[in-house]
């Protein structure tokens, strides 16, 4: 019998799975406390109180099949949040919340809970954000994909598709009604994503960074969750920008990470993105030495690019792959850090220290055996 991957539906088991991986659902989301009762015990507790990357309060709720009180609890949580949002910073100091940052309710659902989930999403609850977890099994382990449902239309569509699936109709992806004009648009339509929250003081910088991304290539897409954006080109990650507190932290595939504080930082980040793109697209094809010197992330990306790869480059990529490069990206590393990383591991000691290396004529036979 083939067992399909199924997320646990009991509230406790689902919560134990989700609470330990909140950061997988949204960058920077951390659990502060569990079981928050905001309805005088009448409707049951909200599963968790969390802090997002901007320091805002997030009430995490689970939608479980058959939970008749979920809608009422969500409405109650919404009202509670509106009343006491700014007071959380003082009332729950361990949360390290940032006063003035609007609070949110994060509703997490699964396909079996589609009915109650859809009902809650249709309610006019301010600050409600909803996502569903799509479980799958890979390499013997269960993982889940996060699908964000941002608008009432989206939630209605989800409800519709889920209901059809329950009735035995195969759920297929809804075709876009208009012809796509660019890959970015396709990506945006296929992957509904929450709006990127940028600290107000950094909004201009993010716009400048986006403008650079748009001009690198039309196939560059920017995607991610509420506090993180990944910049990629044809499946190769070029860089990443995250909101951390009141700052924007950018890291590129070339291994350089920096705070974006002014336009000069954005320009430098753009330089790194371009370098990563040039290597991924193999536009620096004549400069073998330089390409050998690129960090692994870029090299791996370059070797996986499928477009304009010549036979010779295929061979190079295959050789690199066969070598099993295990080095860390070194471009941003200081010399002292390199020296600190040079400490030998037990495996290396073991490989060097076998008697064959110091023995006499026996060495040859022993080494030949090792090599075979």
């Amino acid at each position, binding site marked *: 019998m083939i067992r399909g991957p199924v997320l646990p539906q009991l509230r406790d088991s689902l919560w134990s799975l989700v609470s330990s991986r909140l950061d997988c659902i949204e960058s920077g989301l951390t659990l502060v406390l569990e079981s928050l009762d905001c309805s005088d015990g009448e409707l049951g507790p909200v599963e968790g109180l969390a802090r997002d990357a901007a320091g805002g309060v997030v009430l995490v709720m689970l939608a479980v099949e058959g939970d008749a009180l979920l809608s009422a609890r969500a409405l109650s949580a919404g009202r509670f949040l509106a009343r006491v949002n700014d007071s959380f910073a003082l009332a729950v100091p361990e949360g390290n919340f940032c006063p003035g940052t609007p609070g949110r309710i994060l509703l997490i659902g699964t396909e079996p809970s589609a009915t109650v989930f859809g009902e809650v999403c249709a309610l006019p609850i301010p600050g409600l954000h909803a996502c569903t977890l799509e479980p799958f099994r890979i390499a013997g382990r269960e993982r889940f994909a996060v699908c964000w449902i941002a608008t009432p239309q989206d939630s209605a569509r989800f409800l519709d598709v889920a209901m059809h699936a329950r009735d035995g109709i195969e759920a297929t992806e809804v075709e876009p009604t208009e012809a796509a004009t660019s890959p970015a648009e396709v990506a945006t339509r296929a992957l509904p994503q929450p709006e990127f929250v940028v600290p107000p003081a950094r909004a201009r910088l993010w716009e400048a960074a986006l403008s650079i991304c748009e001009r690198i290539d039309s196939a560059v897409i920017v995607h991610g969750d509420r506090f993180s954006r990944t910049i990629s080109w044809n499946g190769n990650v070029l860089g990443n920008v995250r909101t951390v507190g009141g700052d924007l932290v950018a890291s590129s595939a070339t291994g350089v990470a920096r705070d974006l504080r002014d336009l000069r930082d954005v320009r430098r980040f753009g330089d790194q993105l*371009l370098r990563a793109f040039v290597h991924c697209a193999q536009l620096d094809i004549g400069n073998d030495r330089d390409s050998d010197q690129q960090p692994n992330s870029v090299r791996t990306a370059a070797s996986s690019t499928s477009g304009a790869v010549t036979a010779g480059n295929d061979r190079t990529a295959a050789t690199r792959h066969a070598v099993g490069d295990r080095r860390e990206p070194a471009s941003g590393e200081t010399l002292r850090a390199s020296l600190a990383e*040079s400490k030998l591991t037990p495996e290396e000691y073991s490989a060097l220290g076998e008697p064959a290396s110091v023995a006499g004529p026996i*060495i040859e036979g022993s080494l030949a055996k090792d090599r075979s």
Partner: protein
Amino acid sequence: MELDLGVDRPGRGFLRRLLRRAPPEQPCRKEATVIAFASGKGGTGKSFLTTNLAIGLHQRGLRVVVVDCDFGLANAHLLFGANPRYSMQHLLGGQRTIHEVLSTTPFGPSLVAGGSGISSLAELGAKHMQMLARALSQLADRFDVLLIDCAAGLAPQSMITVLAAQHVVMVTNPEIAALTDAYAVIKCLSRQIERPTVQLAVNRVTNAQLGRATYDRLSEVSRRFASLPIHYLGAVPEDPAVSHRRLGQAPMLLGMPECETSSALQGLVGALEAKILETRMFPGARGVEARMLTQIRRW
């Protein structure tokens, strides 16, 4: 220093500008081939090999200079039988220029002696390393081959001098302690973007096979764990005559040219000469000063 690629400027075509701005693959000015002699453990025979190979390369018609960068514990001048008036201490102290510090040894190669027993030289700062980079650049303009006798170990100053070279001759013994220390240096090199090629010289081997077997083991470990290929330069046999030589005696290659050790040294000289010729045919885009300054900035 990062290049301004003009990505913040409006309009199309900045990618074209980027590609146009890429430095053309032109050889830099005729500069000496820089070879560093390094080891993880002390006492493996770096200075012995440096001096003898310098003499061998000089005999083959190359203009050779040895720079003793074993800061504070230098002894290449003793092996050359020279007594230079000025040393690295005067150069880095700003008292003498590189041309004043440069001396000629009785056996042909020129020498920049390092200071011996001077503790301040063991703690050089970035400013001193920049002065050294400039001095090496000046030497590289005047000579064909620049041999750097580096300090043992993984001190940043030592590593900067190693990374300034185009080739590094890793000198080791077949002992496990020397092997593991040599591998630590190789591992550190493997993490660098711009790094020299690694040539392994095994000193004090008791039989001909031991050198190759030592290389095989180190090469396999280096390839497997550090993904860095190393090349075999050769081996020098254990010879009591080496340690019994006294001050004032000529280096092995000249004093006992017929012995087995000298034959092995000549083999190393030949292999190294081939590397030098290869490097002169395909020089890199950056000179020794630029390579060294890059490392000093990363310090």
